[in-house]
């Protein structure tokens, strides 16, 4: 078996194992770790996680596909997830996502041809007091308007 998951990641997860009475509980942490390492979850890495935890590969897919933060297809280097839920909508999120689409030349749900950026429409991020908000990878960017977005795009070289 080739190892897609780094040994350091496996060691970290093994250290976590004692905190749970069942090994299956390592699945979400393992999927997070694998995605952090590779940017998305390939079928190969899902199989490897299944074997390592001792779960059927179908169970791993069933779980991975349930949660929106796990990417089962490759995504861009930068993933922008802009919230358009109630509080962000009230503060202009619809206008801003249209602005992003135009500026980036992709529609929501798409990745740019050069693979640099993926734009997603997101549900509530829990940043309603500083709406509209988005997530760029792991980072929140809040109190958005066109100027803040433009600055962000320039920072990312987009």
């Amino acid at each position: 078996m080739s190892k897609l998951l780094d040994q350091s990641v496996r060691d970290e997860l093994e250290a976590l194992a004692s905190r749970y009475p069942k090994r299956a509980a390592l699945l979400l942490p393992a999927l997070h770790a694998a995605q952090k390492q590779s940017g998305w979850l390939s079928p190969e890495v899902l199989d490897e996680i299944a074997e390592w935890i001792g779960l059927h590969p179908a169970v791993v897919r069933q779980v991975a596909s349930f949660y929106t933060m796990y990417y089962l297809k490759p995504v861009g280097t930068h993933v922008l997830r802009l919230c358009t839920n109630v509080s962000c909508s009230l503060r202009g999120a619809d206008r801003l996502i249209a602005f992003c689409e135009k500026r980036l030349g992709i529609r929501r749900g798409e990745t740019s041809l050069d693979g640099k950026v993926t734009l997603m429409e997101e549900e509530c991020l829990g940043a309603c007091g500083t709406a509209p908000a988005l997530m760029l990878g792991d980072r929140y960017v809040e109190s958005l308007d066109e100027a803040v977005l433009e600055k962000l795009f320039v920072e990312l070289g987009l």
Partner: protein
Amino acid sequence: MSEETLYIQHFHAGAASLAYYQEKMQGYQAFPKAFAMGQAKVIDEVKVSALRGRGGAGFPTGMKWGFIPQASPKPKVLVCNADESEPGTFKDRELLRYTPHLLIEGMLIGAYAIGARSCYIYVRGEYVAEARILEQALKEAYAAGLLGEKVCGLDFACDITVHRGAGAYICGEETALLNSLEGKRGEPRVKPPFPAQSGAFGCPTIVNNVETLTAVPFIISRGGAWFASLGRIEKSGGTRLISVSGDVKKPGVIEIHAGSMTIRQIIFDACGGILGDRPLKAVIPGGSSAPVLTADEIDVIYDIEPLAKIGTMMGSAALIVVSDAHCMVKLIARITKFYAHESCGQCTPCREGCRWMEDVLERIEHGHGRVQDLGLLTDIADQIQGKTLCALGDAAAGPVMSFVKKFRADFEAHIRGGKCPNAS
């Protein structure tokens, strides 16, 4: 508003450290006191405090803790629900990033009271920064002997583990959360058995919201009666963190004594009034699953029972304010799209019904609605409500019913005019 607040003065960078918690908040003095009181007395004190769950249901916390079968030979588990994902809610995020040690001490006391060694904090996947802050705080606490084999040098062992979710609204529902914790799809379980009998990994489990647990050290330090007296309304103790968003001049988290203000006072006195000084159109008082209120229904005391009396709910204490600049049909269509997206798919009425409601609302918003659509919407909502395993179905149905009932003229204008009157 010179009344004493418990939390909000600590919402600043720098408050998250152990040193700050110990120096400025009498940190880790409540746990030894609780230990000296004994389990039963701790639960009694929390009962006296009139602390009600801050996650949405408002269930009395002390009573919940009392449901744990102490005689059961199985290990007990305490879970902190930090999956904050009800649209409009962002108070727990403040507690997680600014007062992580307050949460840890609250969990220690809760774990002691119910006899749990294993504790988990289930944090929504998006709160990456907050999870890191928690991990850091846990590390500090372990290093200082405040967690692990002998908590504070006493004969009590406790471990707290951060478990990250991965983007699923439904995991805020406690049994879905437990499945997710176990490494499964976040699908709600059939109840009974309730978590107190059989929860995480089949063990007796208590699931409490972040804010609920952070109230506990205050209750132990200063007494349940004192905490209860902070509430200005019967059966509701302490202060409440309220997430205010939407069309107000000063959105954000505010802290008020339970039952001390009306919605009007919150909007106009605490949050500076409506953005652009426009007329108020509507208020969603308890996160997006709460039935909507019209502008002339806001002289109601903002707490659990007064809101229930007028047919809505306080939920997670998220107040979403809507000015007349917005289209109510578009708003409910967006809310319904969310629930359709987040339905886990187990129960047919919710899985199919939410999507139908979304479709019908979309066509009304875009001017293709039919006169009979309003009856159809209420019919579908009625077929969902009360017919699903968990509350997501109700969360989707309630708002639709209330929007159609209270803003019927807006829907009719769309249908008659063949377009959204607000569309340019």
